[in-house]
Each structure stands twice: as C-alpha cells, then as structure tokens.
C-alpha cells in the first residue's frame, strides 16, 4: 500500500481522538505499518470542533501532515465546514445524516450519509462508543487495517466488562455502511 490519509472531524466528546489512536495502534502494532496521527488538543477536545489527521503507509512517513485526504468522516456541521479542505476530489466522505446538513460542493466524492450518532445512541446506549463505530466504518470502507486485527486489538484494548459492548459497536459500525 502507499500513503493513505484519513481525517475525522467532530465536536469534542464524539470519540474521534480515540478512534484515530486505535487505528494507528492497529496499523503499527498489528501490521508493522508506519503511521502518524495528529489530533487537536486543549479546550477544543472538550466540546469544540475537533479533528484528527491520520496517515498510514507501508513505508516510513516523510511529511507528517495531511495534504491529500483519501477518507473524511465528519459528525457535525461546524467541523465539516472548518476541516473540509485538502480532501481529494475522489475521496470517500462519510457525514452524519442528522448533524451535517449543508454539504456544499461534494466534488466526485463517494459520499455516504450515515446516522452515526443516533444509531450509536439507539443501539449501544452510549455515545462514547462512537469511537469504535467510527473505527469499524473506516475499516470496512478502506480495509486500511485487517478486519481480524481490528477485532483482536479492540478485544485487547477494551476493559473486560465492556468487551461485548465494543464487539457490538463494531457490528453496528459495519451495518451502517
């Protein structure tokens, strides 16, 4: 594989920083790939617009910032407007059906409108699990990491008492796209 760029946009608390961290950990620890992840920090992660850029490559990553994004997932209108730049014309773009309404120019994107937040709340009962739902959506659409490696890593990462819930979150994510 060659350099692949992913961006998640959300508001703080929607779980994308965790999703990004999980994704690069799987890529590096399970698949010996190279990865750089740059999340926003400080006050913005507590309710403000949040972004995490992830670059995964089979070779060492030279430039550490996203310049041509292949995959963009966004769950809120304001971060969508703020971070809708450097996205490739033919990128895969996923937006939350209910929370990102005004899309503007969607170029030649492979666009998916998905009720991520509502379905997470409805089916899993806790918005915290958006992180794993996001991870599962990314894995299914990009195959950037292997499905089994994702399962194995989430099993190892999740606290025992939340193990089943996290596995269900993976199922929910996959069912949405």
């Amino acid at each position: 594989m060659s350099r692949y760029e992913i961006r998640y946009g959300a508001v703080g608390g929607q779980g994308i920083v965790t999703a990004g961290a999980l994704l690069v950990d799987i890529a590096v620890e399970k698949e010996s790939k190279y990865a750089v992840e740059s999340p926003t920090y400080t006050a913005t992660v507590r309710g403000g617009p949040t972004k995490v850029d992830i670059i995964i490559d089979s070779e060492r990553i030279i430039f550490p910032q996203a310049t041509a994004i292949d995959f963009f997932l966004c769950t809120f209108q304001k971060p969508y407007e703020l971070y809708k730049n450097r996205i490739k014309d033919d990128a895969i773009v996923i937006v939350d059906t209910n929370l990102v309404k005004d899309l503007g120019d969607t170029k030649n994107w492979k666009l998916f409108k998905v009720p991520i937040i509502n379905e997470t709340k409805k089916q899993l009962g806790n918005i915290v699990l958006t992180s794993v739902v996001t991870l599962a959506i990314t894995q299914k659409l990009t195959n950037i990491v292997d499905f089994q490696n994702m399962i194995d890593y989430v099993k190892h990462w999740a606290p025992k008492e939340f193990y089943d819930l996290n596995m269900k979150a993976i199922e929910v994510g996959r069912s949405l796209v």
Partner: protein
Amino acid sequence: MSKKREVLQGNIIAAKAAVAAGCNFYAGYPITPSSEVAQYMSAELPKLGYDFIQMEDEIASLGACIGASLSGKKALTATSGPGFSLMQEHLGMAVIAEIPVVIINVMRGGPSTGLPTKPAQADMLQARWGTHGDHPIIALYPAFSDEIYSETIRAFNLSEKFWTPVILMMDEVIAKAHEDIEIPDQKEIAVFNGADHPLDEDLNIYDRQIGEIPPRVDFFKGYPIHIDSLEHDRHGWPTTDPALVDKMQTLRMQKIYSRLDEIIKFKEYRMEDAEIMIFSFGVSARAAIAAVDLARQQGIKAGLFQALTIWPFPERELKERFKRIKKVLTVEMNMGQMKLEVERVATDDVNTRALLRANGVPFTPAEVLQSLKEFVK
C-alpha cells in the same frame, strides 16, 4: 526477535529518552505545546524515586534545575516560547557558571503568547543569543520520531560532557504528532556520566587548559565551593581582572568551539549529485525531503542538508558543500533567521534564497517544490 514498534507522541518520546539518558530531576511550568513532557515526568520520576516539581513559573523552573544540577542531578525542564523567554536569565547563569542542564523548547508562534499553539521555528536565534553577553551554546533539533529520541539522549550527554546548558528545539508539529517508533533497549543507549572529581585543598573548580572541560564537583560532597553568576576566578570567586576575564571567556568558548566534531551532527538526503541544496530542520526538513523527491522526478537535482545541531552552526560543513553547490534554499517557519547564518557562510559565488513563513502553517512538500522550481528557472 524484532523489537516492538509503537505509536507515541513526540513530547512523550523526548520524556522517555530523558529518563533513559539518566534524567533524575524535573522542574517546570507546563505550557502547550510542551506540557506532555511535564505530564510524563510527573508520573514517572516519583516511581523511580526521583523528584518532579511543578514550579510557580519558568524563571523558578530553570533555577531549580540549576540547583539540582549543582548537587549532581541530571536536570530537565520543558517549555515553549513564552517560558523560554523567561528562562533566558538563568540560561546565562548556567553558561557562565558552567552547569549542565537540558531545556526542551517546543516552539509555537510568537512573539509573546503569540499563536497558541500553532507551530513555528522562530526561536532559533533566541536559542543562540537570547541570554545576554558573549557565550557558547549547544542547540539540537530533531525532525523524526527516532531523532527526537536520539537527540534527547545526545542533549543530556553533551550537557554532561561539556558542562553547558543544551537546548533541544522542537516544533509543535513533531512534538504533538503521535508517530511510530521503535524505542531502543536501554543497553543500546550510550549514556555519558561525568566522573566525580576529588578536589585538592586549592579548590580549583574552573581553571584548566584551553579546550578542556571543568571537572565534575557536586555540592554536598564536603567542599566549600562557590558558584556565582558573576565572572569568576578559578575558585568561582567574583573578579573583574581583565586578564582573568579574558581567560575565563576563552575557556568557556573553546571548550565548545575546539571540539565541534563531537557536537555537530547533520543528515543529508540525495546530496551526492545535487546542484541545488535545501538547508532546513524540524518539520520543514520533512517537507523538504518529500520536495527533493518530487523535484528529482521533474529533473531538478535537489538535495537536503538537514541540521540536527543548530548551534554551533555547521559552518565548516556548509562551506565544504558550497565549493560544489552554488544554489542554496533555506526553508524555515520564521521570517528569516537561520537564512542569515547560511548567507554568512555562503561564498560570493553562491546564490542564496529562502522560503519563509511565520503564520502557524507549515510548508507542504508542494510549496517547497514550487520554490525550488522558481529558483532553478
């Protein structure tokens, strides 16, 4: 068996390397984008039986590090531009009194509180000349995760070896990015520890031959030694005697400048047949490496000189390259700092240019490529 690769944030990599290098004291005042260094040390040092102190400000932070260092500790503090400004007074004290200490400065946009906390590379000359008076200084600047680790180790070793403050420069991009790294085994890391030095009755702690380094003498070993921020004689007592001042100035400068081979470090990328050279460091050097590859695809023979040691400036190394290469492009996130050094070193037949920006947005490889293309036109 291959070692484990993992994803760690740049600041955490630096903190881990500090511990591996023998750091056993931290005093600091947290400031973004450097705070995770303090965060990590606050958790790890007490576990090892060492001290972490959160100070009231950055002036006190470096003061505490100096005190700890004088009593034999390997001390670290970490900050960003506003805090680094406050540290300048104590930085001078560490230089004149010849006290080892490592200061990490994760640069953000300035001046003053400036651009919290967008990346910059604009404290380059402050690192060199921020504290007043003539003085030598060592400053290092990694760009990749493995370099953050190795240069942090090197910062401690150089500090301990040369009895001088060493500044580890980083930019927000590399310090805040979480990147894959293979942390070396402790046994693979060469840690330099200055030998404890018994003193005779003369209590000479500073006099030595030019080019030599003062012996390690710690507080609390029973010697009535005096350490002063004033210019001093061989016992550390204040003096204004011109001949003695000359001597002490020379001793301090020459301990660094007569041993540059042990301090200067750099990396080159595709320089063998390069006709145009980029001079850069930190995140800008990473954009430059990618730009060199893009330029080569378009027939432009570009190469990169990436400085890992910023101060002392790799003057001799650049001069050597300017015998062959007549075009140099400096790429840096400031309004023209290290380009002044490049211009100073370049001979008259070398064409110099710079790609500069200080608005918090790092250069992309495409922008560096564009600048190369304009240069070769």
